[in-house]
């Protein structure tokens, strides 16, 4: 509250100026998105000739034409696949990261400090260092062109960001709760499932949101492992519009790109506070 002292004396005029700057900035930031949304309702002939993002009429033809591709595969498949991969990744991250986080936050075991440092170190490890051996592993298991390479690693807590997030959160839970439970004869697993997990709710929600957004937006590993159209996710499906650049399919393409942003926008609309908190406290990249 004390910071207000310096803002109280600001002239209304400078307030107005700030608003003006912010509004112009906001328009510039949103214009590309508005243009895309507008284009998704326009006929192909209008898309690249008009700067006004507002379409003349709300025509849904592009959405209907874009949903089913020339090859017969439709976005129904792509969305289904994307959501299956996301669900798997979310469940994996929630289970494995919370287990590791509880160990790091509360249990004293040998070499804990070393393992914790290694865990933080893996945050820096570029994906492109591990990608070739990982590919070899999944290839020799016969897992290429399945969802397994995208989901199975999540069950082994490879996203250290979430472990870190949960460690921070568990440290904030009063330890007296656990001590009381221990006196009552609970073992560590009972404490974990009956005390920690229920109280970990907010961190689990944050993990779910970010896992969803990252997995849904992911392109590289899906490109690497999914090779036939019936396994394609939304990211890979959208790319098909670029391959078929022979005939003009701009309208349907913009319709499908617009639609593909809706799930993330919805998550943002419902969980804005969690997202902002998650970024502010741990620097998770949105």
């Amino acid at each position, binding site marked *: 509250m004390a910071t207000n002292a310096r803002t109280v004396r600001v002239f209304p005029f400078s307030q107005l100026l700030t608003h003006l700057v912010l509004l112009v900035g906001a328009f510039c930031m949103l214009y590309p998105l508005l243009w895309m949304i507008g284009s998704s309702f326009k006929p192909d002939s209008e898309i690249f000739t008009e700067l006004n993002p507002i379409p003349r009429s709300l025509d849904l033809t592009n959405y209907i034409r874009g949903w089913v591709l020339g090859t017969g595969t439709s976005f129904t498949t792509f969305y289904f696949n994307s959501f299956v991969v996301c669900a798997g990744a979310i469940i994996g991250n929630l289970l494995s990261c919370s*287990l590791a986080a509880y160990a790091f936050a509360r249990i004293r075991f040998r070499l804990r400090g070393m393992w914790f440092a290694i865990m933080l170190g893996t945050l820096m490890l*570029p994906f492109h260092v591990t990608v070739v051996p990982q590919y070899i592993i999944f290839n020799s298991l016969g897992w290429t062109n399945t969802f397994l390479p995208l989901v199975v690693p999540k069950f082994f807590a490879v996203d250290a960001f979430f472990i870190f997030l949960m460690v921070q959160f568990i440290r904030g839970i009063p330890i007296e709760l656990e001590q009381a439970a221990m006196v009552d004869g609970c073992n560590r697993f009972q404490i974990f499932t009956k005390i920690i997990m229920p109280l970990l709710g907010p961190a689990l929600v944050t993990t779910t949101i970010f896992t969803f957004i990252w997995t849904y937006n992911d392109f590289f590993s899906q490109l690497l492992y999914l090779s036939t159209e019936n396994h394609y996710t939304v990211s890979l499906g959208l790319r098909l519009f670029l391959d078929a650049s022979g005939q003009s399919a701009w309208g349907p393409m913009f319709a499908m790109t617009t639609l593909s942003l809706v799930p993330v926008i919805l998550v943002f609309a419902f969980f804005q506070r969690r997202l902002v908190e998650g970024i502010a406290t741990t620097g998770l990249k949105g």
Partner: protein
Amino acid sequence: MAIGHSSESPTATGLSLSRAGARPKRARKPLSDNAYGYLFLAPWLIGLLVFLAGPTLVSLYLSFTDFNLLQPPKWVGAQNYITLFTRDPRYMQALRVTFTYVFTAAPLNLIFALLLALLLNSRIRGIGFYRAVYYIPSLLGGSVAIAILWQQIFGLDGVVSQILGFFGVHGSSWVSSPKQALWTLVILHVWQFGSAMIIFLAGLKQIPGELYEAATIDGAGKVHRFWFITLPMLTPVIFFNLVLQIINSFQAFTPAFIISGGKGGPLDSTLFYTLYVYIQGFTNFRMGYASAMGWILLIIIGVFTALAFLSSKYWVHYDDAR
């Protein structure tokens, strides 16, 4: 715990009966904290071994071999590294492109993030609205959809050529111009300054207001207060953002892949490091070569992160006195 208990028991004779009654309960908890710790940690340890540390070491080995996934790896010594640095102009180009990208996009991103955070930190109406609007691009920016949009906006008939046309600048397509294609990607990265902005906003909220009051009483103006209070107090957050930006922007892949159709063109002007790793490893199946590139990337990121940490003691202000 167990030791403390046993050393106590000889003296506490009066309680021996009730203690004996409690014994079976204790026996049901045979695992030490050490065992529990490693039990809880087991999934992560397996993941570390199989998916992170193991592959990192295997890729170090592979980087000294010729390997195409079909025949067993053939040891070639340092040949891959020598070829990369002496006989592969495309690799040099990839380094040039990536460094240009990182050292323009990352600082610009941070500057915009800081400016907007400062504007939003003054007590202004509608902060929720502005924060949301400025943040949304960084939420969506990594997706294929936005990369496609960017390709169209900066394409031949795209919005940008049209707008420039109004001002009499009749350019061509930015995306297919070797001089400009990389800048479309830089702009795309800068457009996503929202998440850094949110970290800055959180940092600004942490600065104690008394500092500003004291400075104002001492006659410090706005500029002085920014220069001598806000900026020094914010250096830990700036540092944090900087490290994050370096690590992230070295690994950018999706936009370059989409905008250049997976080839890094035109004329290799968008040949990002990661894109070249992908091309060599998974298009040409030169996996040893790709592993060598992966390891050099690891070293590059490590060096820059270390530099950031080492330099931090000269410019990052940690408020230990408090």
